[in-house]
């Protein structure tokens, strides 16, 4: 049977050459990047560059993930997920190869670049979720550990939780799981992902105040109300926690509207004011012309009547 720690798939030595049984492509192990419940991920070198390779203790789980990854890839435009390269077998294990994403963890990115990035990252995430939901799937296991910022774009890593809408969520992390907070079921529906997005948002803004789950989402709501960073988004975030948004598009729209509004009053600079003044003058000028024109018409009318 399969046991996590002992499994040799989690202990492949750097330098080992993996040659696929079917496609005969060669990948050399550079180092282990991590391991999860169904397999270990390695950084590998191939003749065409570096990739990430996931090899499993659970072949079925691996194949199921590949299905999810292919789905994400087919949703593309520019997908947030790593692009899928191929799946093959080695030594009786199934493995798959995907893009190796360089990037910064969410928390350190926000810490370095400022909290105003939080809403931007969440908007990027929501735009992508909207596409995924449109295809009939949810992401499931949304959490900072599964997200990276590469360049200035958020990317997602682990697609093990991608679940067909209407099914039960395959993989989740209790802190970001609405069922765990008593705020809904574990059925895959768009609002499930949106709850996780709200918790990530809150967690990024208040990284040091981890609420305990005993008090339910009231605790999360309290954090939202107390945070200055979250102040503009209070009602939106609480709505998302309570399942008020049925689609990623709606939450995206609400956040975008707020975010654009938030930046304006602070940035209503002198230039802006001047432009406003100029606009006022122009409208005054316009109304004078219109009045003059009307007056002229009236005058002509009177003249004609006189004849």
């Amino acid at each position, binding site marked *: 049977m399969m046991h996590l720690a002992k499994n040799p798939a989690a202990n492949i030595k750097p330098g080992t050459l993996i040659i696929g049984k079917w496609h005969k492509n060669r990948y050399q192990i550079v180092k282990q990047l991590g391991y999860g419940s169904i397999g270990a991920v390695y950084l590998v070198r191939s003749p065409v560059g570096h990739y990430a390779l996931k090899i499993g203790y659970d072949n079925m789980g691996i194949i199921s993930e*590949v299905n999810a990854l*292919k789905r994400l890839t087919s949703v593309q435009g520019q997908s947030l997920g790593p692009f899928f390269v191929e799946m093959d077998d080695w030594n009786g294990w199934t493995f798959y190869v995907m893009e190796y994403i360089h990037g910064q963890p969410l928390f350190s990115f926000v810490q370095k670049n400022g909290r105003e990035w939080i809403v931007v990252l969440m908007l990027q995430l929501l735009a992508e979720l909207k596409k995924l939901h449109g295809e009939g799937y949810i992401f499931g296991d949304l959490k900072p550990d599964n997200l990276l910022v590469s360049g200035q774009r958020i990317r997602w890593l682990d697609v093990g939780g991608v679940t067909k809408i209407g099914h*039960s969520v395959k993989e989740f992390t209790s802190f970001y799981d609405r069922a765990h907070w008593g705020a809904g*079921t574990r*059925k895959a529906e768009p609002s499930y992902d949106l709850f996780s997005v709200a918790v990530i948002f809150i967690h990024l803004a208040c990284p040091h105040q981890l609420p305990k789950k005993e008090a339910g989402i009231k605790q999360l709501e309290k954090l939202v109300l107390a945070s200055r960073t979250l102040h503009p988004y209070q009602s939106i975030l609480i709505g998302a926690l309570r399942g008020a948004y049925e689609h990623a598009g709606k939450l995206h729209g609400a956040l975008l509207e707020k975010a654009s509004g938030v930046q304006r009053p602070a940035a209503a600079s002198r230039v802006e004011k001047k432009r406003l003044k100029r606009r006022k003058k122009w409208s005054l000028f316009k109304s004078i012309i219109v009045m003059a024109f009307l007056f002229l018409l009236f005058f002509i009318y009177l003249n004609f009547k006189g004849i």
Partner: protein
Amino acid sequence: MSQGTIKQILLITDGCSNVGENPSAVAALAKEQGMTVNVIGVVENDRIGAQGIAEIEAIAEAGGGFSRIVYAKELSKTVQMVTRQAMTQTIYGVVNRELTSIFGEEKEIDDLPPDKRGDVIEVVDELGETLNLKICVLVDTSASMRQKLSMVKESLVDLSLSMQARIGDNSFALLAFPGKRKDTEKLVDWTPKINELTTIFNKLSPGGVTPTGPALRDAMAMFSPTRSRRRWLRDDAFSEESSG
């Protein structure tokens, strides 16, 4: 997998059996009857000895299921994962046998090219979501489990949350061992939700020996319609006797 029902026994324990028949033999018997036996070993500050680990692995192996050794705080995730994996594996096994019967021996899912396998797994996932699931949870309540029972409770409620989100029907039964004056105590008979066991757990008084083998046999009996009814009657008589 008669009439599309998956039958699982989930054994949660923290050590070695010390009374009664060999648990692996009983697990093998359960497997023969179309059940899967999964075993989770829970550790806290103590450790499960090598002998305990070996037994846990042997039971799961004989029962065609999965085994994990985890810290109590990881229990929820593990219970859920193991249940799901075992379910998938059962279906996978059935699909495999079908393939072999159609294409002859030596034709299994693993012999298919990767892309085709993806399609098969899609079907397996779909079946895992829609088939009925019966889980008999068997909890070790010997003295050393005292500290861990609250986490066990939490993990079972969590499992129930996940299973309720499935499309197919679920039912759970809960047995604890050792029981009062017998090998097991039936805490909850087949029910679609395990939420109700929350209160029952608080009444448990952990202690006694670890008759894992006989307990597994009782868990197995839960799946047989005639025997379970007979046992039920017997249990009633017992509880009357003990309450009187």
